[in-house]
């Protein structure tokens, strides 16, 4: 039991939350500015938001230098700030900055350039950062809701389009059910252990149980809780068969929101799931049977089977999509499977090589995915809120800049060297292969990524080789300044990650190895 902490000490500990505080206050400032600003001045809201985001990013860099490598537990162990959480937070803030830059012009085109968009985005970002910086199941659940509810609203931001409203309602209902399932799992954990703190749960499991079989006999609620919490995460990361919501919601939501959602929700859920795996699920008695082999009823096997299903099914369905947003939704499902392979590799092998692959893959996915959605948001025809392959006909004549950046993003996602995505996949699969027990999985992943190349490259075929039938939409596209900046920087980042991956992979590996400092 922790002693009561005094008010002054509590406020001092809040200093570690300074990136979050900046985000919360700026979201409220933007709400107020939006009320009092003249409507002609509202285009300054996006630069203002990105300024606050940059402040928050600077405070993250400062904290990174300031905190010890083992991290700090603050506020009655409710929040745990360490290098891992700061690295993920920095990625999320970069994603938010790119989204804000693209959204400013996009929203104006649709006539809904209002401050609530940025405010909700910032609150959602707050929840995401809180979710990755905690080792407490209560905080994790509250943070999950804190980032989900603004995202539900942002998905329905185009209130005049039926598809947008539909995606919002669908996401809200299915997301709430998933949260409820996860909450049931948390409640079962609390019922069994009387605590929701990761380290105490781990100690309890380690001291009281030897193998999965023994847990199943004496404490079946523990296995039930594990499965329910995992189901919540699998929903948020959109692994098949928990993926049904993804294509509809990615299609209906405003395209810039889709880009943000596609990366940020996924990255947050994976980072939080990674923490849960490292701290709780990886306890030997939850994985192995008495003779030291992986128990057939362990959670590892569930994930293993789901990865195989996800890899095959998502890539096959993506091939038949004509709507590019839906296609990218299925591609994001297949990326989730790759990230799951990284987590599985991490929990099965203890070599240090596998450490960096999860974070590096997330980083390459960040720029490629948000960049691709940013390009689509500019190609989008007014009044349809969707992009089909035919809409991209003759795109290379309309805007060579956009098509060149799309080429980089698509090549990166398809895993073509020398772009970032290739090295993300390469390191991930290499460390999975070295381990040996996952070689079947690696084989399937390689085969399905070849299938994936087909539908990725088809986008480029439509952009470069097909011509428009009529002359009406040959006019060149006008790319706004902030949007151009965001897309150009993402493209440069993807190329940089492909050309100089080593130092970053090493950095990511060191971040993960901090988990094991006691």
């Amino acid at each position, binding site marked *: 039991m922790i002693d009561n902490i005094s008010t002054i000490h509590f406020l001092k500990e809040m200093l570690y939350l300074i990136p979050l505080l900046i985000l919360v206050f700026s979201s409220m400032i933007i709400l107020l500015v939006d009320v009092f600003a003249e409507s002609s001045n509202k285009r300054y809201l996006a630069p203002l938001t990105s300024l606050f985001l940059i402040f928050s990013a600077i405070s993250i860099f400062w904290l990174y230098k300031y905190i010890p490598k083992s991290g700090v537990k603050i506020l009655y162990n409710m929040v745990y700030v360490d290098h891992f959480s700061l690295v993920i937070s920095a990625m999320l803030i970069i994603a938010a900055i790119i989204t804000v830059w693209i959204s400013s012009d996009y929203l104006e085109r649709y006539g809904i350039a209002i401050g609530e968009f940025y405010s*909700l985005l910032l609150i959602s970002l707050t929840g995401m950062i809180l979710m990755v910086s905690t080792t407490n199941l209560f905080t994790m659940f509250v943070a999950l809701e804190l980032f989900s509810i603004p995202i539900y*609203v942002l998905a329905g931001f185009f209130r005049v389009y039926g598809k947008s409203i539909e995606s919002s309602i669908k996401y809200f209902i299915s997301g709430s059910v998933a949260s409820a399932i996860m909450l049931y799992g948390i409640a079962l954990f609390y019922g069994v252990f009387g605590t929701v703190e990761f380290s105490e749960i781990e100690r309890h499991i380690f001291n009281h149980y030897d193998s999965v079989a023994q847990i199943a006999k004496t404490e079946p609620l523990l296995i*039930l809780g594990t499965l329910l919490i995992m189901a919540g995460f699998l929903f948020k990361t959109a692994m098949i068969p928990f993926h049904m919501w993804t294509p509809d919601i990615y299609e209906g939501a405003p395209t810039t929101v889709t880009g943000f959602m596609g990366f940020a929700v996924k990255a947050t859920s994976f980072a939080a799931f990674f923490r849960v795996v490292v701290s709780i699920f990886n306890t030997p008695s939850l994985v192995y049977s008495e003779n030291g082999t992986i128990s057939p009823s362990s959670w590892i096997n569930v994930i293993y089977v789901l990865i195989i299903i996800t890899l095959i099914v998502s890539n096959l369905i993506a091939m038949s999509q004509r709507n590019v947003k839906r296609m990218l939704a299925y591609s994001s499902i297949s990326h989730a499977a790759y990230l799951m392979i990284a987590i599985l590799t991490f929990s099965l092998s203890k070599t240090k090589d596998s450490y960096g692959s999860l974070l590096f893959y997330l980083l390459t996915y960040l720029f490629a995915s948000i960049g691709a959605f940013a390009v689509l948001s500019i190609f989008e025809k007014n009044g349809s809120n969707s992009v089909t392959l035919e809409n991209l006909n003759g795109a290379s004549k309309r805007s060579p800049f956009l098509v060149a950046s799309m080429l980089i993003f698509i090549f990166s996602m398809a895993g073509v060297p020398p772009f970032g995505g290739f090295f993300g996949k390469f390191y991930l699969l290499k460390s999975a292969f070295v381990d040996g027990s996952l070689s079947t999985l690696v084989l399937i992943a390689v085969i399905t990524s070849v299938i994936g190349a087909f539908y990725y490259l088809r986008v480029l075929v439509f952009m470069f080789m097909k011509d428009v039938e009529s002359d009406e939409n040959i006019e060149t596209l006008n790319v706004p300044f902030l949007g151009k900046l965001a897309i150009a920087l993402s493209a440069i980042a993807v190329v940089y990650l492909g050309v100089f991956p080593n130092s970053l992979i090493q950095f990511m590996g060191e971040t993960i190895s901090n988990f094991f400092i006691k």
Partner: protein
Amino acid sequence: MGVYIFYLFGTGLIATSIVAILMKNPVHSVLSVVSSFFFLAGIYAGLSMQFLAVIQILVYAGAIMVLFIFIIMLFDLQKSEYSKDRFLWRDLVPLALILITAAGFISAISRSESIKNYVANAKLPSNFGSVSAVSFEFFGTSNSVGRFSFLFEVISILLLSAIVGAVVLAKRKL
């Protein structure tokens, strides 16, 4: 004595919940759900969680059910609209799944050792479940901070975002 109170309210809770999903008329369903909330509040009170029992009635039976009834009123359903659906054999699949899941949960709970331990040596603090105990956890005392005060503040931001979101989605002209 406490056990009998539990069985009384538990039976009522299960019965009203089943009635809620079997009723064809949505108003009848909602009324049945309201009574199930009261039974649940009774179980809480029987477990000496007075504060939770009061909140259950205030928030759920009070605020949330009013919303439900309002929405059903606004839909203004005619009898022909809700009495059409009839029993289909494919309805049995989800029913079977639910029953299997429920059986799994019941067997897991009945075999759980930690729950047996709780039953064997349950020792509650004297002010368990009272308003003062709950407020101590949330707000602390005059010179210390409660354990959950941080989460309490986070939830206030959550509610703010929900309000902003409701306005954004529902306001006629932005």
